[in-house]
């Protein structure tokens, strides 16, 4: 239900962005067709099998995140290594198994944040050059910009196809 409300909110926002009053007959009819297609898609039942791949991907990520800090330690403590490997790998697997645009964004944000964690943990050690205010500020700025870019693209996708599903994006690839 909350996801549904989010979609409605996004649609409302981005129908304004498109400027519906500027669209010609063809554009408007395309929007109506997309809305009908999205409506049909929502009623489809999602089988349990769809969760098999993400589940095993998560199990694999856990295993790798526990192993890598021992095989290839980078930070000063195993715990920190586990934390950034876990975040980074979760991000990559989210990206690989993503079915909608917001999940792609989530995967990218997780990966960027794993680097943020590694930077803060490694640079502040005695061997590192010390945490600088400019890199930290820029790291946060990149995270915010990335979130905004993904939200903007998601809004455009929803405004165009009335769905956030990537399969719909490539189905309409023309």
């Amino acid at each position, binding site marked *: 239900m909350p996801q549904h409300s989010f979609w409605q909110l996004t649609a409302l926002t981005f129908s304004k962005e498109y400027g519906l009053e500027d669209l010609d007959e063809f554009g408007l009819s395309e929007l109506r067709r997309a809305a009908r297609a999205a409506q049909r898609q929502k009623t489809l039942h999602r089988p349990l099998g769809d969760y098999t791949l993400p589940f095993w991907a998560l199990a694999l990520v856990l295993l790798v995140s526990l192993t890598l800090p021992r095989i290839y330690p980078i930070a000063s403590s195993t715990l920190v290594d586990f934390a950034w490997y876990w975040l980074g790998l979760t991000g990559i697997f989210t990206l690989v198994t993503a079915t909608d645009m917001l999940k792609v964004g989530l995967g*990218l944000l997780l990966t960027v944040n794993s680097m943020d964690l*590694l*930077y803060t943990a490694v640079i502040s050690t005695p061997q590192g050059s010390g945490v600088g205010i400019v890199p930290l500020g820029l790291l946060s700025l990149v995270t915010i910009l990335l979130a905004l870019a993904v939200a903007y693209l998601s809004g455009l996708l929803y405004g165009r196809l009335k769905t956030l599903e990537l399969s719909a994006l490539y189905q309409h690839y023309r």
Partner: protein
Amino acid sequence: MLYLLTILFPVSLAAMCYVLRQRSALIILLALCGLLAQVVLVTGIPLESPVRLLGVTLDLNPLTQLFLIIFLIVLALAFIAAWNLPHGENYVPVALLLVSLVSTILLLQDPFIVSLLLVSASLAAVLALVDLPTGAGRLLTTRVLATALKYLTMMILAGVLTYLSYVLVDVYRPGEAPGRIPLARFILALLTVGFALRLALIPFHTWLPDMVEDAAPLVSALVLTVINTTSLLVLVLTFQRFPILLVENETGLVFLRIGAILTVLFGGLLALTQTDMRRTLGYLLIYGSGMVFYGLVSASPLGLTGALFEALNQVLAITLIFISLALVERPDGRPPLPDGQPRRDLLRRWPVGSLGLIGGGLGAAGGASPLIGFASKLLLYQTAANQGWFELLLLLLATLLAGLGLLRLLRDRFLGAGEGESTAEPLLLGETEADRPTARRLEQEPRSTALVALLLFIACLGIGIYPQPILNLIGEVIRGLTFVRIL
């Protein structure tokens, strides 16, 4: 003060242009004046006199100054061309924002901050990719959205890999823990994949043909000239700052050279097999990226001179190609051909645009004398010959494939017979001139844009005929690079 102005002035101008974005002509004029002022600022910065600001060092060397000025000139030409070409309402503000980001990147000496700024530049470019002209009565196509998403994902992954490599460089100390992959090799591998994604080297190239095919030509030009060339300069500066990465990885360099050769070979081959004009151009640009990368990873003064000169040539040639592409794709008043068939008489219909596209393509891909790209390719072939005849042969084969791809494009799209041209027929019995239907007036090339394309073509020809001043400047800079001397 000059450093700060160089960074902040384009940002403030971009903000102003964003507010006025619906008044296209006004912001183009404003941006042109701003770029002129930026050229004055960049030339006013004293060379090689570093300053510290908020804990980071800012410095400008002759090479970065040269590239910055070239970027500003080609952007100014692109803005003039945009006067008569369709472009998104955020194109000018985003381009100005990129000017600021690129100026900061080239002034900064901290690789970690630079990699973050490169990611920010790519994020800004995504906004330009999904842009529509003011008041456009149509929807954004799903292809553009898919291209923007692909570009965003690839650039973030590239950014993450380069972040990671720079963080590791910071804590790297010679003398490795035994039994694991040497850190220097790991860092070089991360850097290579990161920059291969940025420079669209095969097999990390998929975003580039899609972008060339789906995005507006002026936006593709912006990304491929400003962002990609800056990435290449960042890679050179990284090697200069951390020569140990190359010194400890001589075998790695051989693999990188093989990767570059595969890129030029497959780039040329794929260009030959395409049927779509834009995709052919996309693969020709991948071939060009491979050539530049080959020169860079040869890590010799000759190869590096060739690589940097080729990169500079490509900035001009790519701008010419995309402005010309936008010209030849303009609707000219004729009805579309059945089944969406492409027109084959582009040279007759759009002479200046076609001349620019063919000239730019021959220079960038073929390295045809006396066009731009000839001297730089000669240097790259000489570098390959120094490595062995087999590498030279492969590079020549790749160039042949790319040249054939371009010739095929020429035959298929440019040299066909004129379509829809009315021929003078004699008057029939009882017919007068007044009875005849009015002759259809087809659209002509807009003068300002055609003039820009012509200017760029002349510049490409000029540099091709007399490359010595630029070559001397690049040679001087390269003599000062430590990593080339060490290797």
